């Protein structure tokens, strides 16, 4: 035991001795392992980050499931959502009014704001005090009386405020204002939906597997030199077992330095994390802490993996006292077990893809992660076999091609192992891009296409009779408003919990927006495709008045709006009943809301925030939203961009390890290359052989990755219930990026090649 420890220690000492070369190799390995460790520690912090965020969201929840206290009391307060957006970024607002002296303050506040006082999140405060936030400041002109502490925020980048109000009162209609006596016991959970859960699992898997591949490649840096050193030790009397332990000691030392580098990088990430925001999500530094078991797994697993990889690599090398003997005939790779992995993965994923589940379940996550891991690991396992199988069939070509293919035929394993990282990352990224683009396309289609792309809708609660005119006056003629339609909306109870919106329009509005051949006062219309109501059905209007949808109500379709008209005010898909005033038969139910559709000028980027400001003055509880739903497309586009950048970063990382491998190989082949130069081999021929030698495994890896990525993407689309369609643009993007990596690695090797092919290489004896 003591001897073994002594040999491990000797290995560790050897890692540090040997001058600049040794230190360079140690540094490369440490940085490589460190990058991997930092990424793993960040990933290991993810559960805590999510938990902490969820707990804060739950603690500030103010939507009592039981309806809350019925009457005002010393501990009650009124709260209403004042959700708004500023330049497409969510702003979480609440209007609050204490009804009693002991009314609770929300988390993050030491007291409730008094009427007219504004408490804001630090991010919102920065925005409001900046020039960029001037437009938002017009919406929230109240004095800032304090800031919301971390305990009351999702994350450091969240824009949130509490505004004290003395006009807040419980309204019976719409339930916009709620009475509560405490925060936090209700389920305002914003857990990830199936789509996001699926994507998150695949993202983690697709990003972490290349990290593992990269760590494995990093601990092999300098392997050739180490093998030669071990041969020298064999000459001095070390037996095979001792050399293995010495090699393990070297790997362990490098991995431990890597752990240190990784820990420092992780601390750096922790310091900077509050500046990072992705899709409105951000994390506090304090939340970025790996859970203990995962941290231990990383801290123990990485050095253990480093030692294991080193020992496995040594299996193919016989270290003899007079030098190294590589096993001349490496065992042919078998395909059967490599195929089993992706097939098992598909077997796990296929039932979910066919079942089209829509609800999240933790068991499903495990199955999904397992399936994705098996498919992606299958890609990594298949690639060395595929490279070997293909390069053994390659022949012909010029000298450069021959040098490259023969080199790969001799040992394709090293190249294939490194390219595995690219293959896994690209396969995962293509699968995700496929899913993202389908989901993104779905949202674009939901919004109704191009005709309503610039149309925004607002729903303002207003007293009967005057709301429409006031809203019209507030918006008409404002900068950026190209057209405007305003109608009243009544809320009707169709029984069985069904609620129906009835919009009261003039015939002129009906003709503009519905496909009708005639319209007269007293007519009513049902939108084609609406299934919740039918002609002749009895509904209960606000104020408990009963009304029957006229039996002669005509089923009509929406007219595709001309480019210069706002669509949707009269009817949009969730609002199936459109009536003219006469159809109500003289009934004057209280108007619950006024709906305005506003078409904005694309050239006026702040027009929508001008509209929000105008609407805010009429009713802070009013919402202003893009026609047909929120513009998730932009958010998904951001996610896709982030994913593309992440995958490219992985490509760069792997490219770096390929470069290190190429440089090491050049050093190792110094003598034959110098001889090639001596008998007149043009440097360009050797450079082209380097290019082919890098390109062949990368092209094969990309081909396999694209096939696996598209297949996995199709399965994921099935899981999230979207039709299969492929984003060929991103596939082409990855192919181009892969080619760029090959070119850059080759170009970066050329100076070293030039040095290696100098005649000085012949003077080594």
């Amino acid at each position, binding site marked *: 035991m003591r001897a073994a420890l002594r040999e491990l220690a000797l290995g560790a000492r050897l890692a540090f001795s040997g001058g600049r070369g040794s230190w360079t190799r140690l540094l490369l390995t440490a940085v490589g392992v460190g990058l991997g460790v930092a990424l793993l520690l960040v990933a290991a912090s993810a559960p805590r980050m999510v938990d902490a965020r969820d707990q804060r969201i739950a603690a500030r929840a103010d939507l009592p499931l039981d309806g809350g206290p019925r009457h005002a009391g010393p501990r009650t307060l009124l709260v209403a959502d004042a959700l708004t957006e500023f330049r497409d970024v969510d702003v979480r607002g609440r209007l609050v009014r204490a009804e009693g002296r002991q009314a609770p303050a929300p988390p993050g506040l030491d007291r409730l704001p008094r009427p007219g006082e504004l408490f804001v999140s630090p991010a919102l405060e920065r925005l409001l005090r900046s020039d960029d936030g001037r437009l938002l400041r017009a919406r929230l002109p109240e004095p800032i009386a304090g800031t919301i502490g971390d305990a009351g925020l999702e994350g450091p980048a969240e824009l949130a405020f509490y505004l004290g109000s003395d006009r807040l009162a419980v309204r019976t209609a719409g339930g916009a204002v709620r009475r509560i006596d405490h925060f936090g016991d209700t389920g305002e959970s914003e857990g990830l939906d199936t789509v996001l859960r699926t994507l998150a699992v695949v993202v983690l898997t697709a990003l972490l597997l290349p990290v593992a591949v990269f760590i494995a490649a990093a601990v092999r840096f300098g392997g050739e030199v180490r093998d030669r050193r071990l041969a020298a030790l064999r000459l001095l009397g070390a037996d095979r077992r001792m050399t293995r332990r010495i090699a393990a000691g070297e790997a362990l030392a490098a991995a431990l330095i890597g752990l240190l580098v990784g820990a420092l990088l992780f601390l750096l990430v922790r310091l900077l994390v509050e500046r990072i925001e992705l899709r409105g999500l951000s994390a506090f530094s304090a939340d970025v802490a790996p859970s203990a078991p995962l941290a231990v797994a990383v801290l123990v697993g990485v050095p253990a993996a480093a030692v294991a990889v080193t020992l496995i690599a040594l299996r193919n090398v016989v270290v003899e006292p007079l030098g190294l003997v*590589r096993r*001349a005939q490496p065992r042919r790779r078998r395909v059967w077990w490599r195929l089993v992995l992706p097939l098992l993965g598909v077997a796990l994923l296929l039932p979910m893809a066919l079942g089209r589940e829509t609800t999240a379940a933790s068991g499903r996550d495990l199955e999904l992660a397992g399936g994705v891991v098996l498919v992606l690991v299958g890609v990594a396992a298949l690639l060395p076999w595929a490279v070997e199988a293909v390069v053994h069939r390659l022949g*012909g070509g*010029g*000298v450069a091609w*021959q*040098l490259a293919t*023969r*080199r790969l*035929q*001799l040992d394709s394993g090293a190249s294939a192992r490194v390219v595995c990282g690219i293959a896994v990352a690209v396969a995962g990224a293509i699968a995700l891009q496929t899913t993202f683009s389908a989901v993104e396309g779905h949202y674009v289609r939901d919004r109704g296409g191009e005709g309503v792309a610039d149309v925004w809708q607002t729903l303002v609660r207003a007293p009967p009779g005057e709301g429409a005119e006031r809203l019209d006056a507030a918006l008409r003629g404002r900068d950026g408003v190209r057209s405007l339609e305003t109608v009243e909306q009544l809320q009707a109870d169709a029984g069985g919990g069904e609620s129906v919106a009835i919009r009261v329009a003039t015939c002129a509005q009906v003709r503009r927006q519905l496909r009708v051949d005639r319209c007269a006062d007293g007519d009513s219309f049902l939108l084609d495709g609406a299934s919740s109501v039918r002609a002749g059905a009895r509904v209960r209007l606000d104020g408990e008045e009963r009304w029957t949808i006229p039996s002669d109500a005509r089923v009509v379709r929406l007219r595709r709006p001309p480019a210069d008209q706002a669509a949707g005010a009269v009817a949009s898909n969730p609002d199936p009943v459109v009536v003219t005033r006469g159809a109500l038969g003289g009934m004057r139910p209280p108007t619950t809301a006024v709906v305005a559709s506003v078409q904005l000028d694309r050239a006026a980027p702040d027009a929508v925030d001008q509209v929000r400001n105008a609407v805010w003055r009429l009713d802070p509880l009013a919402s202003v939203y893009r026609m047909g739903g929120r513009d998730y497309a932009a958010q998904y586009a951001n996610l896709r961009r982030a994913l593309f950048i992440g995958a490219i970063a992985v490509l760069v990382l792997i490219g770096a390890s390929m470069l290190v491998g190429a440089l090491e190989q050049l050093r190792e*082949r110094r*003598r*034959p290359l110098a*001889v*090639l*130069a*001596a*008998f*007149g*081999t*043009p440097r360009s*021929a050797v450079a082209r052989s380097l290019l082919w030698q890098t390109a062949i495994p990368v092209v094969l890896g990309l081909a396999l990755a694209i096939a696996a990525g598209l297949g996995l993407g199709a399965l994921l689309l099935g899981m999230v219930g979207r039709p299969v369609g492929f984003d060929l643009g991103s596939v082409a993007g990855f192919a181009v990026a892969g080619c760029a990596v090959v070119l850059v690695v080759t170009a970066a090797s050329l100076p070293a090649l030039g040095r290696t092919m100098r*005649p000085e290489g*012949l*003077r080594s*004896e």
Partner: protein
Amino acid sequence: MSAAPLLTAEALHKSFGPTPALDGASIEVAAGEVVAVMGPSGSGKSTLLHCLAGIVRPDAGTVRYAGRDLTAADDVELSALRRGEFGFVFQFGQLVPELSCAENVALPLRLDGCSRRDAERRARNWLERLEVADLAGKTPGQVSGGQGQRVAVARALATEPRVLFADEPTGALDSLNGEHVMRLLSEAARDSGAAVVLVTHEPRVAAWSDREVVVRDGRTTATAPLTA
């Protein structure tokens, strides 16, 4: 030497850093002549060979081959010359490990523009002449040192060079194998009419040459025609 020399070097100087390797060395080699360059280790004999072959550019002095001044030629011209007119055999590590023996021999032919099929046919002929035809499909890692040297000689002669440069070609071989390689090398060179510049420190190897040039401290100090 009655005929005009094929290769001449005059007053060559070459230093590597502060260490002088050649200090006024001169030599003449006639067509078809076998010249042994002898000297102790570190005397500058390999550097002289490298300068003669256009591998290393001397700091001063001139090298002429068939009337052309090699010291004025650029890298492309020198590479083309080495490819077409010269052949090389070194002590070790000269075969491309991933190529088979036949492909190694065919390599300079292919670099010179020969088709793959023709190059490999000619390579096999040369392997046969060097008595290693059975190694054609093997890689250098699968053959012995002596066999590898014979493959290297075949490769050096495959382009039918006018000058063959051999730097300690038997240095890594036992005496029996060394003799065998030298016999085949000199026979093949004489058959093809190539001049040979043979760097060695072994008199036994030098005995295969027509004359000796001795290099000491970077200077050629003696030239003795061998008559034995």
